[in-house]
């Protein structure tokens, strides 16, 4: 995970595997107001196991930058309330996860919406506004 090198950097970067899922509260917020704060608050989040959070030195509420070849996004990190074994992080499907999705499909039309690899590091930047992701002003 690049921990040894990371120790010498201000904000160490870690490799992370992310999958996406659906959440009833987030989809409710989407139906009501997809431009609103509730939808952003529920969407712009990455959830990780307690073990992974400890390993990477994150605490719930920290902001993290996720980046890969397709884009980068700043979201809030939260510790999973479930007994997750670690090694896999979770994002609710939304524009904030879609920024990290590869367009590569082998010509078959289905992107890897549920399989994202990215680098993660603590960030002082604000949560990425949705307008930066979706082109609208």
């Amino acid at each position: 995970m690049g921990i040894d090198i990371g120790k010498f950097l201000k904000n160490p970067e870690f490799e992370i595997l992310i999958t996406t899922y659906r959440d009833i509260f987030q989809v409710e917020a989407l139906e009501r107001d997809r431009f609103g704060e509730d939808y952003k608050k529920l969407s712009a989040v990455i959830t990780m196991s307690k073990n992974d959070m400890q390993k990477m030195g994150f605490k719930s509420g920290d902001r993290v930058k996720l980046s890969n070849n397709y884009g980068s996004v700043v979201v809030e990190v939260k510790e999973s309330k479930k007994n997750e074994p670690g090694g896999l992080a979770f994002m609710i499907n939304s524009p904030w996860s879609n920024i990290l999705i590869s367009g590569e499909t082998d010509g078959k039309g289905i992107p890897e919406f549920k399989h994202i690899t990215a680098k993660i590091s603590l960030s002082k930047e604000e949560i990425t506004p949705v307008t930066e992701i979706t082109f609208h002003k």
Partner: protein
Amino acid sequence: MFTCTGCALLCDDIEAIVENNRIKETRNTCRRGSARMKGAMFRLVPSIDQKPADFESSIKKAAEILRNSTSPMLFGLDNSTCEAQVKGIQLAKKINAIMDDTSSFCQGLLIEKILQKKLRTCSLDDIRNKADVLVYWGSDAQDSQPRHLSRFSYFPRGESRQRGYEEDRLAIAIDVRESNTAKICKGHFYRIPLKGDREFILALMEALSGKAPAYDTKNMLGLASILKKAEFGAIFVGIGLTYSIKNDFEILTELADMLPKFNIMPMVGHYNMRGFNEALFKETGFVNRVKFEGKAVHENKYAIIEALKNKSIDALVVVGSDPVLSLPRSVIAHLPSIPVVCIDPCQTFTSKIAAVNIPCAASGVESAGSAVRMDGKVIGLKKIIENNYLTDEDILKRLMEAV
């Protein structure tokens, strides 16, 4: 009683309390259904180039865009009535458009197999009345189709299952995470690694044929034993499974062949995605990714993802969908450079970049019609509120007349 358009369960036991011509309260809905029926906060208004316009001018401008296009695409219609879908297909045929919908990057692979009768399926009513073993695979129904377990699968009493979940039914979850559905399947949650479904299926098939699989032997033999004893089983296939085995989808057919007592149920999100797939299948023999050019041609390059990546379309009509929200950003980069016509009841991320916006009635609330439930049953939608919004069917008809 009204029908909810929150998801493809199309719950038809909904009560609505109307005040000042808006739905103030709903009963029997889940959170998603309630929010959907009450309507989004921001209504779409007619516009051209993001400036307010009158309705007629918007229709004229949309028709002009389509007339000037050499390679238009009509996308969406999964949140439209069956009647609007038929009209959409007619429009696509008239203008030789490419036609695709969300199923193209969702459950299309699975629904196609079901419509081709390559996978055994049944109705949700059969499941309520008969099913004793329920497998949620890559599907978190509790969050995506929240009344699935309570109306049809695990909790209700059925003709042959009078004691419901307490004694008569067993629910299993196979997933990469402990979802809210997996929590209910206590003691029968099989956690698999990301993209581990194929390996899991292969091991399960070994166990079903009496061999000891190398992968998780004890659990796999236990699961095979439960499945073999089932009198009437159902596998609820979520997009978690569909995405994971998308390059080797036949493996699901092979597994289904080894489980003759089981039926496959596609877990569909958008309320009438299956309706779209059925309508296009009836017309062309394909569920999505079609180009009309005298006859219907089906190719992967007509998938919205490929068409946007290849920049092979020069105009896009979106009906009741929000591709700017749902597609990877790397794919939607082409969208702002082509004229988009957005037909929707509410403002969306796509409407914010559209050249033309045309508001329509919210189906199932402001207009009536029919829709196809995830199991293929046709369900009626009623009108709850009277107002002057045209239906998307009417708008598509007007567009057809104007192009």
